[in-house]
């Protein structure tokens, strides 16, 4: 139900960032945030399919209780490398480094990020970190679990822990620099009239994410540095026989790695906050509350980390305090969900592919978030901690939430990125396949957890088999759901129908420039005179605003928030 221009079909603009210069040098030495976003897109997709391959091996192996496919050591490497690849090289960079990089300057009306060369540097740092980790994977592999728990990782593992840890350590700096770039850009480079409360919520979400990246990532760098020193030089930071404490590692690790969950999900929430108003053609309900909820999640998210450690023997008092804070951090997510839902009421809702992903996100994120309440409740955690319930829970957040948001965003902005539309019906079918495949894969794992199947098991008692078979079947469907978009989005980038500047139409500044944009984004610096997601005072969108509602032709004043 896109609004097709009544005039002649749109044509590709003559000059844009993709054809401004040619040759491999023009890409590898670019400082254009849009080209860097595409460099990230290529490398992050590469890691996604490597991580996906490991996942497929895990699911195939678990088809039968005794698993004939892999040896125990190989299985342990598969789930470890799946986790490390997906968390550090796919989920954390996916939305911020690809969509955030591409869109934040466009959304605030700037020519580029604040530090274009540092932006290119962060991509190189990411690649170098990735190469270290890949090297460890082919040279002995990694079998510590993505959590690198000591003393197993530092004293007992017979795998290439050191290079992998160094790889993750290096990649962290890419994340810190990206966060820094976003913060400075949002503070200093907003176009005239783009007040804080006219910023799209995608930008607010990335602002909150950047805070977590800058404050949290140094902690994981230090932690992994200590673990590497213990492993290589035998310094006993975490070794109890030398006066160290293995639990200290977990405190330090989760101090970053819990907030890192919000690095993965907050940007996806930002995407959803763009999709729902666009396809409901209605302001986002409770804009200020959703913006504040993003910041609240980023801040409170820093003080819930020991809920990963309720059963390590930590003090009972600490466990009770952190359980309480865990329930508090759930509230802002609930507020967002209610506001998204309320936005739909009174809207004009279409079912274009990005909106299907938004609906999918709502359902799956809701299940992921609500099952977090089971794990946060101390009494229930005694039973389901470290079982498949946890695996199912975080996949609902990470895949059901973050990946659905990522794919929804990729479809939504694909016409802006490439100037061309993807095949709509194929995309809708793929979204549907993903949703079905995802639930089939991960819902049975909740039940496995309730039954008591621990995580990270290469073999299991036969009573657990039925749900493992379901999960593996679902994973096969899911794999098709991931391959389809990769194929047709690539195809559409070259052969898709020309999209025009604003095919949906949407209200953000990024849609006020041509698709694909010029290297310098806008011909003249835009002046913002409207509020975010305002469809009523935007005659330029060419929509029918009912008489008496809004005031077509008269745009809102540049300042004032009423």
């Amino acid at each position: 139900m896109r609004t097709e221009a009544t005039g002649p079909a749109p044509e590709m603009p003559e000059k844009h960032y993709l054809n401004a210069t040619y040759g491999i040098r023009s890409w590898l030495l670019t400082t254009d945030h849009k080209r860097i976003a595409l460099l990230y897109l290529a490398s992050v997709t590469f890691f996604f399919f490597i991580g996906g391959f490991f996942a497929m091996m895990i699911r195939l192996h678990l088809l039968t209780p005794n698993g004939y496919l892999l040896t125990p050591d190989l299985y342990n490497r598969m789930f470890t490398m799946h986790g490390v690849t997906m968390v550090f090289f796919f989920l954390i960079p996916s939305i911020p480094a690809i969509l955030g990089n591409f869109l934040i300057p466009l959304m605030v009306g700037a020519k580029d990020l604040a530090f274009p060369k540092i932006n290119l540097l962060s991509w190189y740092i990411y690649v170098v970190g990735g190469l270290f980790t890949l090297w460890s994977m082919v040279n002995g592999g990694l079998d510590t679990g993505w959590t690198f728990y000591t003393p197993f990782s530092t004293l007992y593992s017979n795998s290439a822990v050191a290079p992998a840890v160094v790889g993750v350590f290096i990649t962290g700096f890419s994340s810190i620099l990206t966060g820094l770039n976003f913060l400075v850009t949002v503070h200093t480079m907003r176009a005239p009239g783009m007040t804080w409360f006219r910023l799209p919520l995608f930008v607010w979400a990335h602002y909150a994410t950047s805070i977590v990246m800058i404050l949290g990532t140094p902690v994981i760098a230090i932690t992994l540095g200590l673990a590497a020193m213990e492993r290589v030089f035998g310094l006993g930071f975490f070794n109890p026989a030398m006066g160290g404490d293995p639990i200290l590692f977990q405190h330090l690790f989760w101090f970053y790695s819990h907030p890192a969950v919000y690095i993965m999900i907050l940007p996806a929430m930002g995407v959803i906050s763009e999709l729902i108003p666009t396809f409901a053609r209605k302001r986002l309900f409770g804009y200020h509350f959703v913006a504040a909820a993003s910041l609240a999640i980023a801040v409170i998210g820093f003080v819930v980390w020991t809920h990963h450690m309720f059963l390590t023997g930590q003090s009972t008092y600490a466990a009770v305090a952190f359980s309480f804070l865990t329930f508090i951090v759930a509230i802002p997510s609930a507020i967002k969900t209610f506001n998204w839902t309320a936005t739909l009421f009174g809207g004009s809702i279409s079912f274009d592919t990005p909106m299907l992903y938004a609906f999918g996100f709502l359902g799956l994120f809701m299940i992921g978030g609500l099952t977090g309440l089971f794990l946060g409740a101390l009494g229930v955690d005694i039973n389901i901690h470290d079982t498949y319930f946890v695996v199912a829970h975080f996949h609902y957040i990470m895949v059901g939430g973050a990946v659905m948001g990522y794919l929804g965003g990729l479809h939504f902005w694909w016409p802006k990125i490439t100037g061309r539309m993807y095949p709509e019906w194929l995309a809708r079918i793929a979204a549907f396949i993903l949703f079905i495949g995802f639930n089939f894969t991960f819902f049975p794992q909740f039940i496995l957890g309730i039954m008591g199947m621990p995580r990270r098991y290469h073999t299991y008692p036969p009573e657990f088999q039925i749900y493992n078979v379901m999960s593996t079947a679902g994973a096969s469907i899911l794999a098709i759901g991931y391959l389809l978009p990769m194929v047709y989005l690539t195809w559409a980038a070259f052969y898709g129908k020309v999209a025009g500047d604003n095919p949906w139409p949407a209200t953000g500044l990024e849609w006020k420039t041509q698709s694909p944009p010029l290297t310098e984004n806008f011909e003249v610096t835009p002046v913002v005179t409207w509020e975010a997601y305002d469809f009523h005072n935007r005659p330029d969108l060419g929509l029918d605003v009912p008489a008496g509602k809004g005031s077509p032709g008269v745009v809102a004043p540049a300042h004032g928030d009423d």
Partner: protein
Amino acid sequence: MQSPLPTFPEQASNFAGNVDALFSFILMTTLFFAVLVTLLIIFAAFKFRRRSEKEVGDDVHGNNVLEVGWTLIPTIIAIGIFAWGAAIYVNYRIAPTDTLDIYVVGKQWMWKLQQPNGRKEINELHIPVGRNVKLILGSEDVIHDFYVPAFRVKMDVVPGRYNTMWFRPVKTGKYHFFCSQYCGTNHAVMGGWVTVMEPAEYAAWLSGESGDVNPVSAGERLFTQFACVTCHLSNGTGRAPSLNGVFGANVLLADGSTVVADEAYIRESILQPNAKIVAGYQPVMPTFQGLVTEEQIGNLTAYIKSLQSQPVPAKGAGIAPSPAGKK
């Protein structure tokens, strides 16, 4: 098994009913909200579907009353769930005093368990039904976790320290236990069976073929062998406090604070004797770090525990005079 699509395992401990009740409560509450929101979304998607290409939605900013409502109501429910969960957990972390104590040592990739009379088992645990059981957990290498799904309890087994867990089996039978903290190659096969028996059966089993030395007498031998006995004189006149009656009591420390003499305290005192100095004594005890094995620490602890019933000397016991002390 019973049904082709099984869900909850059997409820075989005192905790199982409580844990499942809270689980069901959270399930019902979250299901209510999830279904409500899902129905609202489906309703809105149908009712407010786009009817003409250029249509726009209403111009609504928000509603502060709704915002306050959907912030407060979930907060209140969340705090309720938190409190219920915390109550179960605190009960689980504080073991009663009348427990049957079993020492459990995890190592890659097996469990060694020892009954109070010294009988040892590998990957098997026999316990009587209806009795409070406390597991004292130590590790020889990496972190493990002792998990019995039918009892709904687990606890990490961490090298360098003791963790404890307790439960009361309420149903005889044979139940799986697992290692649920990833510990390397054979993590998945590091498990076994808990056998819950009638007390009489258990007594018969316990007195059956054993040959293992009971930990108290093993500990007593070590107490002499490591020359502990030369300072820790039982009449309180030695260079170190008498250990009679110390276990479970409050000990007064040099800095004026008190500490309960539990398994963790005794372990620490053996391995890092200068961490807590008893009031009135000099830090003269050497560390036994690296000299005693996990099993030997277990035996020493069992021996010190057995001194609980010995007469406490008037002077030189280190026990705090406060009324909170047990003796």
